[in-house]
């Protein structure tokens, strides 16, 4: 058995502080996940992944490094992981989703900044996240002003490479993003010392497309009533998809989707038939942020979809696999990634179309708009989303919150009242 404490110590982690974090996680996980009734058996794998979140997967990363491989960490669904993998690197998602890291982030960042940025920076500064410690390069992007400036701070502690994402979707923006995608390829080759060939990239494009399809299959299963898998479990699966080994993840997610489909055929579900159905839209929920889903599902409603970066924005749209040359592949990658409808774009009508379509597909009774505090893009965009939903008579409620627990009581009241209204 691997000596994980030694591994963490070799990664220059603060072991004492890390123990505090790891001691808290099982209690929360028990309360949020393991007490759910009638979970699919295939969730066992994902439970074990979380139980070993800072050990087994990290040991895999270290094994890769010991063979001269590189690790890069990304914070956003816009980073084309296919390219990093084609260059021989392992790509992992790094967003911080715990209040535990926020105070350390606030040592160098303003308090009135989104908790995701504060927690991400705090995770690196506190030396309590082995994923951060394992990374040879951090990949930032320009999806908001807070992140843009936080990269400069983070760069004092670890090397950061920033991809410049355009903020509009005109042809010239696609051209710029295509160029940026090429620069990212150069950077990855420089990092790993390996050439990205069209053959290798084709393999990785197909692999990530398979991963997207597996998640989509699980999402389609959630359209059934009764819903065969809880929103919390589906969210967890998506969160794990950011850092797990892709092939293993695809296999386990397909198995879960298959079990969900069997349940649908047998008319089984985790909530009773006719339970209120909620579509969540808004800002990302990085692991271990399960707060809103837990509140909603504890109140007896099922979360049936997430129009978020830890939901459909992560896996919607395939990369065209027809590209033969690197040029064609980079174009296909740029086109797919620029289809993501993040609120950082202006205007952003595609997101409203996505939400309306998803309300229909998931048969949602209402929409909960999730806004991490101080995320201005999504906060402002609520105006347009609310208008579009209310015009169609679809109930919507905005929840603005952070990772703290002090507002849970009032949020529960609001969510419960919203659900009472839908019944």
């Amino acid at each position: 058995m691997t000596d994980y404490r030694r591994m963490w110590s070799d990664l220059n982690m603060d072991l004492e502080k890390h123990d505090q974090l790891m001691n808290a996680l099982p209690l929360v996980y028990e309360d949020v996940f393991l007490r759910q009734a009638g979970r699919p058996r295939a969730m066992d794998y994902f439970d074990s992944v979380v139980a070993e979140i800072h050990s087994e997967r990290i040991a895999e990363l270290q094994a890769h490094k010991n063979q001269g491989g590189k690790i890069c960490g990304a914070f956003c669904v816009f980073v084309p992981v296919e390219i990093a993998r084609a260059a021989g690197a392992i790509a992992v998602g790094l967003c911080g989703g715990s209040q535990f890291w926020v105070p350390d982030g606030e040592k160098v960042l303003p308090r009135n900044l989104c908790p995701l940025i504060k927690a991400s920076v705090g995770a690196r500064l506190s030396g309590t996240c082995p994923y951060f410690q394992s990374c040879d390069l951090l990949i930032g992007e320009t999806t908001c002003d807070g992140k843009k400036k936080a990269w400069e701070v983070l760069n004092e502690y670890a090397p950061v490479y920033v991809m410049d994402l355009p903020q509009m979707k005109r042809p010239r923006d696609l051209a710029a993003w295509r160029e940026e995608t090429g620069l990212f390829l150069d950077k990855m080759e420089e990092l790993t010392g390996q050439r990205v060939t069209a053959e290798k990239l084709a393999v990785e494009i197909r692999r990530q497309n398979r991963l997207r399809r597996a998640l989509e299959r699980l999402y389609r299963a959630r359209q059934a009533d009764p819903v065969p898998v809880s929103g919390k479990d589906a969210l967890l699966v998506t969160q794990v998809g950011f850092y797990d080994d892709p092939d293993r993840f695809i296999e386990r997610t397909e198995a879960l989707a298959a079990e969900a489909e069997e349940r649908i055929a047998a008319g089984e579900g985790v909530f009773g038939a006719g339970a209120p159905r909620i579509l969540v839209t808004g800002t990302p929920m990085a692991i271990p942020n399960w707060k809103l889903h837990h509140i909603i599902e504890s109140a007896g409603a099922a979360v049936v979809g997430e129009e978020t970066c830890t939901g459909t924005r992560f896996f919607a749209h395939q990369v065209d696999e027809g590209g033969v040359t690197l040029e064609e592949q980079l174009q296909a990658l740029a086109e797919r990634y620029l289809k993501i409808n993040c609120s950082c774009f202006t205007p952003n009508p595609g997101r409203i179309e996505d939400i309306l379509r998803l309300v229909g597909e998931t048969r949602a009774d209402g929409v909960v708009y999730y806004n991490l505090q101080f995320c201005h893009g999504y906060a402002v965009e609520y105006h347009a989303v609310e208008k579009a939903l209310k015009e169609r008579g679809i109930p919507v409620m905005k929840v603005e919150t952070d990772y703290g627990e002090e507002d849970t009581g009032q949020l529960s009241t609001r969510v419960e009242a919203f659900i009472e209204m839908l019944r």
Partner: protein
Amino acid sequence: MAVLGIDIGSRTIATVVLNGRGEMQSAAVADSGPRPLEQARGMTGDRHIFRRIVATGYGRHGARAGFATGLVTEIKAHALGARHLFPACRTVLDIGGQDSKVIRLDEAGRVADFIMNDRCAAGTGKFLEIMARGLGLSLNEIVAAAEAADGDITLNSMCTVFAESEVVSLLADDRPVGAVARAVLNSICDRTLNLLHRLGTEPAVVFTGGVAAVPGLSAYFARRMNLPDLLVPERPQLVGALGAALYGLKQPGA
């Protein structure tokens, strides 16, 4: 058999007992105190005489775990209670100890939409209490003091803590207590109006919650908010508990 509704709020606990015909048999209000659940349990008395005990308010989950047989959110409870007292009600404005909310009802009295402040005491009963203390006035005196004064001071701070410092600064600056009291009430009014505007105000508007019981306050609000027909129940603190009891009465089965 009778039904008990109990509203366990941050500042007060209210109970309402309805008989099988929906007539109020008794009602009580007490401070929540440091151990609200114990206090609430004490107020229920001999629980065997009730067919059902329905809890609402922020202590509802604790009550459900302890002694209540059902629960309902304060949003639905206030909607039911206000509609029962005023059948024409289409909008409820509820200002309680630590939150304020606006609830819009459809023609049939169902909750159509609602809006609620969260994690902040701005514009709530707690805000009013703290400001009154800073002014050296009781809640019974604050409206009269504001009415007697004139001038147009504006409080810039929404946050209770900052607003308290602002009140202290204004008094240190020798501004009349009444004028500052006026600024405090206007601040709550403006914040409440903001909530009302965001949801839309359909008449008749019913004002519920403990703040509505502060002497003179509802008349002051009605004038300031240009809502001359604002309806106020005789005992506005009881509306949540009444709604909870009505909810219990409506449930099928024994």
